[in-house]
């Protein structure tokens, strides 16, 4: 059996920092978009930070993930650096994708982050391929595939899940169920309540955890990832969560697809607030230490935004570069 990551205080602190990093990155990105500095579409991860933090606590750089259109949080948790991330969102030459990808394709192969994806359901077959590769190359690495409740209705997930179970591949399908695909509620896109109910139909375990609780995610992911590393095949790990901002951008479009009460209900369960309350309660981090994290992260972000702002735009002559190896 593989040694799994234990939930030490250091791990808890790392998860906290990670959530704060994601939150601040996203809030900053949202503002920069509203200020017209970030072009295109921006899908923010605010509210869902516990999932990326809890899962990625188990992964090394050699483990891979596939992400979604809502991918910044996954990249940050996988070790992505703010400066190159902001630079990418700005469309700068110094960005992770040299400005060619932007938010929806942000990625870094060296960190095992096989890309945000503009195609809903684009990730699962690719994650399955990475897991196949891990097994084929006789490594003990695992691939984690993030996807939404909306994405769970795409055929790609079905095909990938079946294949992963059949070949007993080291992959974890992490469903970030935030109750909506864009503006369509889960009740309006599927007749089931738990996406995890689909696991059995592929011959893999389906596990449900509270996606607003980083520790619950951590524990769920620990088991699933251990199973994958041990060669026992995939798991469908469903994390119940909520996004605090709109589907795209920051503010709602004036649409009434979510009631104020619903939003308030979930905001009370803010994954960071809850986590910090526990950290304080259990004397793992004092208030000052927590505040120090925010200050450090704020400084990092400020520097990164400056880096991005000062970075050069890509040269138009590079348009036809990077098409072929």
């Amino acid at each position, binding site marked *: 059996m593989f040694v799994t990551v234990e939930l030490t205080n250091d791990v808890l602190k790392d998860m906290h920092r990670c959530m704060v990093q994601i939150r601040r990155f996203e809030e900053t990105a949202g503002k920069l978009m509203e200020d017209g500095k970030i072009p*295109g579409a921006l899908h923010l991860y605010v509210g869902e930070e516990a999932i990326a933090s809890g899962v990625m606590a188990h992964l090394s750089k050699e483990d891979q993930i596939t992400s979604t259109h809502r991918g910044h949080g996954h990249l940050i948790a996988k070790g992505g650096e703010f400066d190159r991330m902001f630079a990418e969102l700005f469309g700068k030459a110094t960005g992770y994708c040299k400005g060619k990808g932007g938010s*929806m394709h942000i990625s870094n192969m060296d960190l095992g982050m096989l890309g945000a994806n503009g*195609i809903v359901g684009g990730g699962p077959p690719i994650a399955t391929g990475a897991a196949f590769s891990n097994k084929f190359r006789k490594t003990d690495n695992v691939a984690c595939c993030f996807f939404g409740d*909306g994405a769970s209705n795409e055929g790609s997930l079905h095909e990938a899940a079946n294949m992963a179970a059949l070949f007993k591949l080291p992959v974890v399908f992490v469903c970030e169920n935030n109750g909506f695909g864009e*503006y*369509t509620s889960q009740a309006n896109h*599927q007749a089931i309540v738990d996406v995890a109910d689909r696991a059995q139909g592929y011959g893999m375990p389906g596990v449900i955890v509270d996606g607003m609780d980083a520790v619950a995610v951590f524990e769920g992911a620990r088991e699933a990832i251990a199973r994958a590393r041990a060669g026992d095949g995939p798991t469908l790990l469903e994390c119940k969560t909520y996004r605090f901002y709109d589907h795209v951008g920051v503010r709602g479009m004036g*649409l009434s697809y979510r009631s104020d009460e619903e939003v308030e209900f979930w905001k009370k369960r803010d994954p960071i607030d809850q986590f910090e309350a526990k950290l304080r309660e259990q004397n793992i981090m004092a208030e000052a230490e927590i505040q120090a994290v925010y200050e450090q992260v704020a400084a990092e972000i400020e520097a990164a935004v400056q880096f991005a702002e000062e970075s050069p735009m890509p040269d138009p002559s590079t*348009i036809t570069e990077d098409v072929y190896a």
Partner: protein
Amino acid sequence: MADQNNKPRQLTYVMAINEAIRTVMQEQPNAFAAGEDIGGAGGVYGYYNGIQEQFGTDRVYDTPISEKGIVGLGVGAAATGCRPILDLMFIDFMGECMDEVANQLAKMRYMFGGSATLPVTLLTMAGAGASLAAQHSQSLEAWLCHLPGLKVVMAATPADAKGLIIAAARDDNPVIVIMMKTLLALNGEVPEDSYATPIGKANIVRPGENYTIVTWGRMVHEAITAAEQLARSGLDAEVIDARSLQPFDTETVIASVRKTHRAMVAHEAVRYGGLGGEVAAQIQELAFDDLDAPVARVGAPFAPVPFSPVLESAYVPNAETIVAEVRSQLRIEG
């Protein structure tokens, strides 16, 4: 309602789409609409705004994110007496449902010896220019036009957006209506009544004497701008909005070239393998002796659509690209 000064009514492209869908839903009791987020949200580009409210949840359906499912739903429903209006948010998602489009929707009638009728209207959004990167900015009309059994139209103006959607919905064949995301805010004259823009008929949007530009979609406007610039060099370009890409109005194009003797095809899609090749090939086939110069082509370079605005704006062909290409084709200096 006609406006107070009795001027022809102006409508944006997005509102023209909206009005067209409402018109179709009113005219055709067996029409229903299905697509992702078109119900409660009115569609991500808003052209479904208010339509579910007006026609009810029995006529306008939010679907799961299941493009194969959506197109298949349309095929099965159309074959059994409905007139579905399907929504494929971005043409880039065609890859998700290409089997249903290419192997079922386009071929069913033929494979069944003519016994199935598939009055499906499929609306989808194409084009670059919104910093949406490689998977949300494509122009894939060439794939669709190569498929016998489909009709394919592309709307460059609010009036045609309305007229082509209505024509598509009245047609008993599957018609794919490609709309342009960068034209959504464009204003134009749009008649209030119900009318169909004939499918298969190109539109001469700028008559001219000694040069022909055949184009479609957003590029129609770029071509008009280009024509105005070229006028200063003494070139009086005729701009033809092909509008219907399948069937294609070869006749109008050839008549123009016989008059002008020089031609270009311009589209936003990647140049290599784009429909421009087909049109250029047709022109030289049918008007070879009339041509004073090779038919020129303008299209995007051979790369996916880049995200960064500086790259994207250099990538997407526009009026300057057209003018530059004409100058080099005709060896006109500066």
